[in-house]
């Protein structure tokens, strides 16, 4: 049987979800027999091939993240969101209740360790969006594995369900919002 092709991206997040994925330990051996990893932050491949499953960690907070996410969506059949940032906005979304310009000013000019600070502008860096968004506010998402980060067991559950041909919904005892 042909392996299921998977691509994953890490947007505005801390990489904790991918770390949690690596925490599945020995289970990764069986998984590697069934899954082929293409572009992921772990394999360091930059180009998207057409894949069966796209996985996204992190929320969408700037123009680049938005573009990468849309690109992933265009290249995958099923899109799975990992972690609170992708599912709900997470810690990154703390800035959503503040004005974007105020956030930039505080970070780049007014922060205590900054001398003669300047706010960086595109094209040098991607432009910030007004708000930090959960992934499903930007593209269609097919399934979710929440948690900050999700337990390794929840990540494995999500992948196994997909391999079994079902869209995963975490059972209540695996649900985590933090």
């Amino acid at each position, binding site marked *: 049987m042909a392996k299921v092709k998977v691509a994953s991206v890490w947007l505005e997040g801390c990489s904790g979800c991918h770390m949690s994925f690596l925490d599945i330990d020995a289970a990764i051996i069986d998984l590697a027999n069934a899954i082929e990893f293409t572009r992921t932050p772990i394999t360091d491949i930059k180009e998207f091939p057409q894949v069966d499953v796209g996985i996204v960690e992190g929320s969408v907070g700037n123009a680049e993240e938005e573009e990468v996410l849309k690109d992933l969506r265009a290249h995958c059949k099923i899109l799975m969101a990992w972690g*609170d940032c992708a599912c709900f906005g997470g810690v990154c979304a703390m800035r959503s209740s503040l004005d974007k310009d105020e956030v930039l000013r505080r970070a780049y000019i007014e922060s205590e360790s900054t001398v003669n600070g300047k706010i960086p502008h595109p094209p040098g860096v991607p432009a910030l969006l007004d708000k930090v968004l959960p992934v499903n506010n930007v593209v269609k998402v097919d399934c979710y594995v929440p948690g900050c980060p999700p337990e390794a067991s929840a990540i494995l559950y999500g992948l196994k369900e997909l391999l079994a041909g079902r869209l995963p919904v975490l059972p209540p005892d695996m649900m*985590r919002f933090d």
Partner: protein
Amino acid sequence: MKEITLTIDGKQVKGKEGDTVLEVCEANGINVPTLCHMKGLTDVAACRMCIVEVERERRPVPACTYPARDGLVIQTQNEKLEKYRRLVLEIMFTERNHLCAQCVASGDCELQKLGYRYQMDSTRYPYAWPALPIDSQHEYLVIDHNRCILCGRCIRTCNEIVGVHTLDFGYRGWKDVVVADLNQPLGKSTCISCGACFQACPTGAIYSKKSAYKGKRPESKEVTTVCPICGIGCAVKGFVKSNILFRIDSPDPSQHDGLLCYMGRFGPLSQDHPRVKTAMVKNAQGKLEPCSVNEALETVAKKLSQFKAHNGSGSIAGLASSQASSQALKAFKDLISGTLGSKLFDTFDGDEYRAVMKGIKAFDSKADLKTEVPLEEIFNADCILLAGANPFDTHPVAGSYIVRAVRKNKAKLIVLDPAHNVLPEYAAMWLKPKKGQEASVLSNLAKSVGGGPVKEDATTGIGQKELKEATQILGKAKRTIIVYGGGVLQQKNAALITALYKLAAVSGTENKGKADVVVLKSKGNSRFAWDSGVSNGTESIAANLAKNGVKALYVLLADDYAGANDVAAPKGLDFLIVQTSYLTPLAQKADVVLPSPTWTETGGNFSLLDGSPISVSRLVKPAEGTRADWETISEIARRFK
């Protein structure tokens, strides 16, 4: 009450007429999810989590307000209801910021639990997130409106259970928030800081600075006991993690004894005074130096036996705080009067004791402290006279009892106080006598209530009209209770106390001849100290140290920081022992300091206001080697054998 039969989820279940559908479900072990419902509060169907399907109703109805009737057929779980409940959750999660990773309540939150139960792994709506302010000026509490789901549990608790009604809704629609008074910061409002709203909050919208990030209730050890701080005896549940007490709740806020106050809920978490961690003895340079407890005990025993031998027993005196446990007070009296043979022992509230006893005896020579009724009797009264007491300051739970009696039982409240109308919203009238004229007002009232003429007495400051009104209220009442506190006790005026008892005895048609009185005493274990004669029946020892030629003074403060703050170490004193939890000003002048654990570290026996004994368990383990106060005192006594 008539029994009714309903069919819930295909099963025949019994309920009582007057029950709501939710009450029938709860009584029959059928779990229906709730958020805005809390036992003991009026149900308002604000959250819609408890929706159920009732046969012949066009749409789902909230179980918490739907009256149960005989023959109803109800569904509590089906696909449609589950779908609606998840929808309700998604709307609540998206309206304001409920991202758990940003919230102090994560892991101890009812909204989060329901999110898990309904497998809410995403939300379909954009976040509204109106930028709402955070009120963090209060000493103990923070209100973060961004985490509020507007269930109103805090508001109903503040109103219906605590009785102060500081909190209510302000604004409308998107801007709807919980406000204190007319939108004051909580810390500047009429809030009595009891923290009941914090316990009622199902999310992280109201949280305590004393508990935040210190532990989560589901991951901690629970100890249920009784609070000994003021003598009312409220049940408390302490939450302990790694031997740190991080939160105190009421075990069941719907019960009569389910109230707590700022002292009980936050006091033990706010011990900011420097602790006495070891025993200390003054060195040759006159500075206190840490030493072992045994060393300190040896010094104490040696010195006291010297004073006894050279200066006689009368050169030794003992003063105790009535905040100490019954065992400690008893051991203290045994040591001073038995082992050391001195009659000079007293408590810091001894003046109050002597005034009360003298006042009672002048009223009825056979009467004693047993005339006092339990505080709960307030709920059976239709008239309450509150004299010289500000219960929301000193005994807040008593304040709530009074307010509830006024609101629920329509009891008439008369406030007698020369300076403040302490419960203006609830008092039927405020008798405001001139300072020091309370006794005359009470005597005049006792005469007029007893059938005599209503006489105007210009010197008292109370006019004829008021006197007449008060006479009417007290005369018509079936059951009258007089509650008096610090404002009366601190006057040390026996005549005033006699006048209170005389009025109590003539008013109330059903309890005529009986003086139903509650005394809000200044310390938590005052009643034991008074009953057991640790308080001196004859004279104030603290005021007469020099006159009595006292050379050595032993002060037992236990965990009462303020107990001896107005007591100066008298001139001519050669030796001062202070046994205390905190390095108080008096302890700093001592020759020997003995460490006391706090009540949360040892527990002990105490007496409530009405004299009933309680046993208090410790909430945390004391520091290694710490002894209970009574053990320390007995150790000294042992050295004399």
